[in-house]
């Protein structure tokens, strides 16, 4: 009984300390996120962390507790005094709790968040989102804004870049093929469209067109945080590490200015 009490106190104390440390760190966030989708993922991450903390402390403490409290004074092969092979209360609690916790995790955050995520997507679809056609080729991300007739958004040096207005829903259309390939536009591989700061990635599969919705919620760019970048997350050949592009989330006014600039660049280049 004494062991259980000591263990219980240690467990409760360490869990409290762990939760406190976790919460103070959480203020700085575990990953930088600036989209509604990212907040969903981050809150699930935080929720899971605070529930998994006591489980981790429990097992970690058992291993240390066993080494300290139950350690034999010498290596004589003497049988333990306690020889329990069954403890109904312990087994019942263990099995019961592991079922309860897992079902809870599945209901919340998993099911709740999945519902929220796809409800958001439906809502954003209805709000006339900004459409960005994203084409992944080996090895380049290309961004096309059909509502503004911008075929390929680039900076002054001709490098691909993406700008998004803050607080406006975006619908990405994701495709993997090579528009510049002369004889086989199907020579595409799997890429993965990931903007770390947006908290979601989606694979881009040759032969499929996929969509992804989200709302960028803060003004930011690659210089304010290197996580505001498009990064190919799925290995796609030797150019994979370099398959990244800067992203800027800007105000509506700046976005309008940028679109004008892109249209001018395009006209100067004699584009469509």
């Amino acid at each position, binding site marked *: 009984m004494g062991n259980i009490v000591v263990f219980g106190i240690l467990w409760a104390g360490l869990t409290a300390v762990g939760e406190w440390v976790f919460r103070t760190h959480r203020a700085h966030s575990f990953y930088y996120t600036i989209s509604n*989708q*990212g907040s969903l*993922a981050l809150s*699930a991450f935080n929720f*899971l962390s605070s529930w998994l903390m006591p489980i*981790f402390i429990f*097992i*970690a403490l*058992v*291993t240390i507790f*066993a080494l300290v409290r*139950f*350690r*034999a004074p010498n*290596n004589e*092969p*003497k*049988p*333990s*005094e*306690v*020889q*329990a*092979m069954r*403890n109904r209360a312990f*087994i019942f609690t*263990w*099995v019961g709790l*592991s*079922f309860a916790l*897992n079902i809870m*995790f599945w209901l919340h*955050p*998993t*099911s709740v*968040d*999945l519902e929220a*995520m*796809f409800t958001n997507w439906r809502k954003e679809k209805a709000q006339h989102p900004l459409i960005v056609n994203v084409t992944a080729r080996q090895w380049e991300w290309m961004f096309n804004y059909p509502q503004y007739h911008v075929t390929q958004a680039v900076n002054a040096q001709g490098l691909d870049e993406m700008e998004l207005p803050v607080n406006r829903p975006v619908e990405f259309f994701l495709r993997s*093929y090579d528009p510049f390939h002369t004889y086989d536009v*199907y020579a*595409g*591989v*799997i890429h993965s469209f*990931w903007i*770390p700061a947006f*908290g*979601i*990635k*989606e694979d881009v599969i040759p*032969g499929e067109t996929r969509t992804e919705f989200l709302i960028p919620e803060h003004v930011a760019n690659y210089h304010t945080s*290197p996580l505001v970048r498009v990064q*190919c*997350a799925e*290995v796609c*050949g*030797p*150019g*994979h590490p370099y398959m*990244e592009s800067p992203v800027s989330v800007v105000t509506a006014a700046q976005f309008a200015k940028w679109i004008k600039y892109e249209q001018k660049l395009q006209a100067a280049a004699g584009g469509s």
Partner: protein
Amino acid sequence: MEQQITQAEARNNPQPKVMHMAPVLRGLVWATIGFAIFDLMTVAVDPFRGRPLVTEPSVVVGWVGALIGWLMGVGGYEGVILPLFGSPSTWVEPKNWRKYFGLSTNHKVIGLQYLVTSSSIFFIAGMDAMAIRYELMQPSMHFFTYTGQYLTAVGVHGSLMMFGVGTVVLISGLGNYFVPLMIGAKETVFSRLSGIGHWLLPAGALTLIASPLLGYWDTGWRGYEPLASQDPGGMVFYYLGIFAMTLSTIIASLNLAATIIFHRARGMTWARLPLFVWGILTVSLLNLIWQPEIEMTFVMALLDKLIPFHFFDALGSPLTYLSMFWLFGHPEVYIIVLPAFALWNEIIPVMAQKNLFARDWAIIGLIFVMMLSGLVWAHHIFTNMRNSEMFPFSFFSEMISIPTGFSFMAAIGTLWRARLRFTTPTLLVLMAIFNFVIGGLTGVYLADPPVNLQVHDTFFVIAHFHYTIIGGAIFTWVAAMYYWLPKLSGRMFNDTLGKWLALWIFIGFNGTFSQMFLLGLDGMNRWVPAYPPYLKPLNYSVSLFAFFLGAGFIANAIHIWWAWVKGPKSPENPWHARTLEWLTTSPPPDDNFDGEVEVVRGFYRYDHDEPSAYLVKNPEPAE
């Protein structure tokens, strides 16, 4: 039976032909000849423009020729081919150290062959990891000369570690050596097949190591399509190498499962079967189901590359490959850790001299993990799925932690209020439990789709699975090596040194991989030899710990090697264990037991002194 053998021998040359060339050397020569014949025949009937002597199709057929030459050369010709055609086998297994360098039918020799081969693969793939970590100390390429070279290093590291180490050491290695001993068998059921099986492993590993010769491949250990079909020829050796290594595992599993079912000693009922044997049985069934599945997938992918068939490109279905890969890929993880779970509950009761707690739950846990492991694969491809498709896989991925937890429950119940002897194996098992719980709990994040969509394909995932595989399975392997060293060699290691060395790898391991979680959360994705500079400090620190860990494994290997050869003589049963392997001498004689074994009760009771089994010695031969 006895008479027939005597007759057969009398009819033949009583002095079998003496082999002049060492089997491994002959294997290499015959492999070269086999490759040349098969390769040239192929380019003769299927020439390529410019008439090169080696093409992608010809290298595949040539490889088959090389494999046949190799297997025949190491002893398959005398041991298998001759008997197959009705001639008596002229293969003689040497009595000295030479028996380890050729075809053997003795499960203990085969087990040691597997352990040594696998340790060598562990060393090579580990050095590969060191090179990877050295490259990642800087944000731009400074060690590898080409990204494809780095990606090949990553792919070779992953494939060798999974198929040549993780799947092998506890099953084909320790399983082959100890399972027959633990069930009181004198030999295995398919011992000759099993002997051939081992020689597939070095063949497969060498194939993978040679893959850069055919061109740098980029896919990592998963071989994702359609990238694989447009990658250079090195990809071909990825398929073939893994094919040979998985075939080796299938053979070992078939042999072990059959031996467990048919060769148990008298009184070794299912209810008395040791935990480790249960672990090997469940995992053998997993191997027999899923290894053929991945081999089929690789055959399709290989044909897709050679012909091409368009199974898995935009004209076919890339996603089908992903599902077929992970359909095997997730059970593979459990193939690696199930024997480790079983070993915890094998070693803890012995070290505590305490009854195993809730033995039935521990076994049920192993069986349910085995069954559920086939239902979770799609959480590896959540980035390709929709709401309704994610639900079931998320459900099973979370639920599989319940039977996994049963192994923890049994271990904790046994530890509780024990008189736990603090030895190197004890320490390493507790470390493995500590590490695996981190690996397991971080898996809960990955089972949750919104979190998964963020951390998938980042270093968070790398940290997670290295925690399960190194932290869980490899630590347990090291624990088991120390635990069984007195049985394997009759000698004892230095316990104090062993504990310091355990602490060494524990610090190195946790320092390396705990920081990788942070790297992943910070936006470090996989397969990148060059990365944004803000990630450098953390990467630098990870690399330093990784080198420390690598050195720690080498130090442990040297200690074990020293104890094996020069350690002080160990008593017959130094841990006072009750399982059958301790009933015989150390190292055990050729036929394991000098008499007949009869099991009379279970092995996990320490509340009485009655023996769990008797060895009825063979009568002394009359002189």
